[in-house]
């Protein structure tokens, strides 16, 4: 049903993807599987710039025509960028979840990214 899972990213069991950017920040969003399960996304609530977020805790929400889901912080850190474009055009998360539909960048311990799920491990959590 969903497209392929990018192997260069890391993942959480709560369906977030995580990427270390060129300038050492940690960017995350929700996976293609997650956006497909939600359906048409119509509202997004992101944490404020400068907010401290905690690994495994909700830090925002994505809401579709049919349901609402928390966004879970993949790691603990400080919000240094938010993708404001997805608040005005939330459908971008449906159409490009790993690209233009990214959600938040944080400053956090980059070493912890390696402890998150690999693409293969994530795929095994969503295959039925």
């Amino acid at each position, binding site marked *: 049903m969903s497209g392929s899972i990018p192997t260069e990213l890391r993942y959480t069991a709560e369906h977030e993807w995580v990427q270390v950017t060129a300038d050492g920040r940690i960017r995350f969003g929700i996976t293609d599987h997650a956006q497909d399960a939600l359906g048409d996304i*119509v509202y997004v609530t992101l944490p404020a710039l400068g907010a401290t977020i905690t690994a495994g805790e909700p830090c925002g929400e994505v809401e579709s025509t049919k349901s609402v889901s928390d966004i879970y912080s993949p790691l603990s850190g400080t919000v240094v960028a938010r993708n404001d474009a997805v608040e005005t055009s939330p459908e971008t998360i449906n159409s490009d979840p790993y690209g233009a539909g990214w959600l938040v960048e944080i400053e956090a311990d980059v070493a912890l990214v390696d402890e998150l799920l690999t693409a293969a491990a994530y795929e095994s959590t969503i295959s039925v």
Partner: protein
Amino acid sequence: MTNSDSNAPAELHSPLHDRHEALGAKLGDFGGWLMPIEYGGTVAEHTAVREAVGVFDVSHLGKASVVGPGAADFLNSVLTNDLGRIGPGQAQYTLLCNEAGGVVDDLIAYLNGPDDVFLIPNASNTAQVVDIVRSVAPSDITITNLHRDYAVLAVQGPNSAAVLTALNLPTELEYMSFATSQFVGAEVIVCRTGYTGEHGYELVIPAEHGVALWDALMVSGAAFGIVPCGLGARDTLRTEMGYPLHGQDLSVEISPVQARAGWAVGWSKPAFHGRDALTAEKAAGPRRSIVGLLGLERGIPRQHMNVLDNAGAVIGEVTSGTFSPTLKQGIALALINADAGITIGSEVVVDVRGRLGRYVVTTPPFVDANPR
């Protein structure tokens, strides 16, 4: 990220199930039937119905025949609406109430003649409707549950007539009138009705011919922008119109007087189930009523969320809530206590998971539409 509204697996498949799977539909349980929630996305499907045309498989809806001498008169003493207001070839929205005035089901009655009425109840209530009607029927009136014998397709939207015309199906029908026609050798009932607020038709055809009709609609509809639509879009479309959904906005607990469905009650009839209780409730005034709520800020109200007054007191509950794809705003139907003193135009608050959002009280529909 999962749908948690169904536990038991849906057992029944529509005659069109293979088509839905081939189209990659997301399927969900509707009254024990595994039916399409969406194909390409609820918003696009909703928009297609408002601007062009969509086709819905609603074969999960119940079907039952009531046949025998005086079948229509008999039903008129059971169901709330007055079948005397319509003639053969017309259909009517009506209710089956219990003696307390609660709504067992809302349904469409197709009046074939004084001795023959066809009923379309909701999927999950069909067996109960058949049982109740049968239990009070004279011995020479036969009630037959035909739930799995027919496919039902709804063709809805401004281009719906053009799609049917291309298949030589009748379209020049008054609102809530129906005609019987032929399609590939099968009898098909075409009714000018729907649940979307747009000009549209519901087609009832023997189950074994459902796939052929679906395929023909998709082919002839291509030139008119036809889109297969799931029950997710059906829900957003009907909510924009303020049409009640049984089990949410109308139920055994929510009477037609409370649901502002009194227009579907033949008050002057000598008998119908629930007459005494409903007449008394109407005279006294309902203790609560359904109103529309239009969001003034972000957020989507959902069923069972509390409605508060400006002082923070709970004054009611959301019965249906969604995102309106047309308005790009949260909308809801809500049951508000009469003693809260709320009037049309009042501002109220909905507790959306702890965030308080402002809503204005309205009379639906929320959008301009043209069902007739």
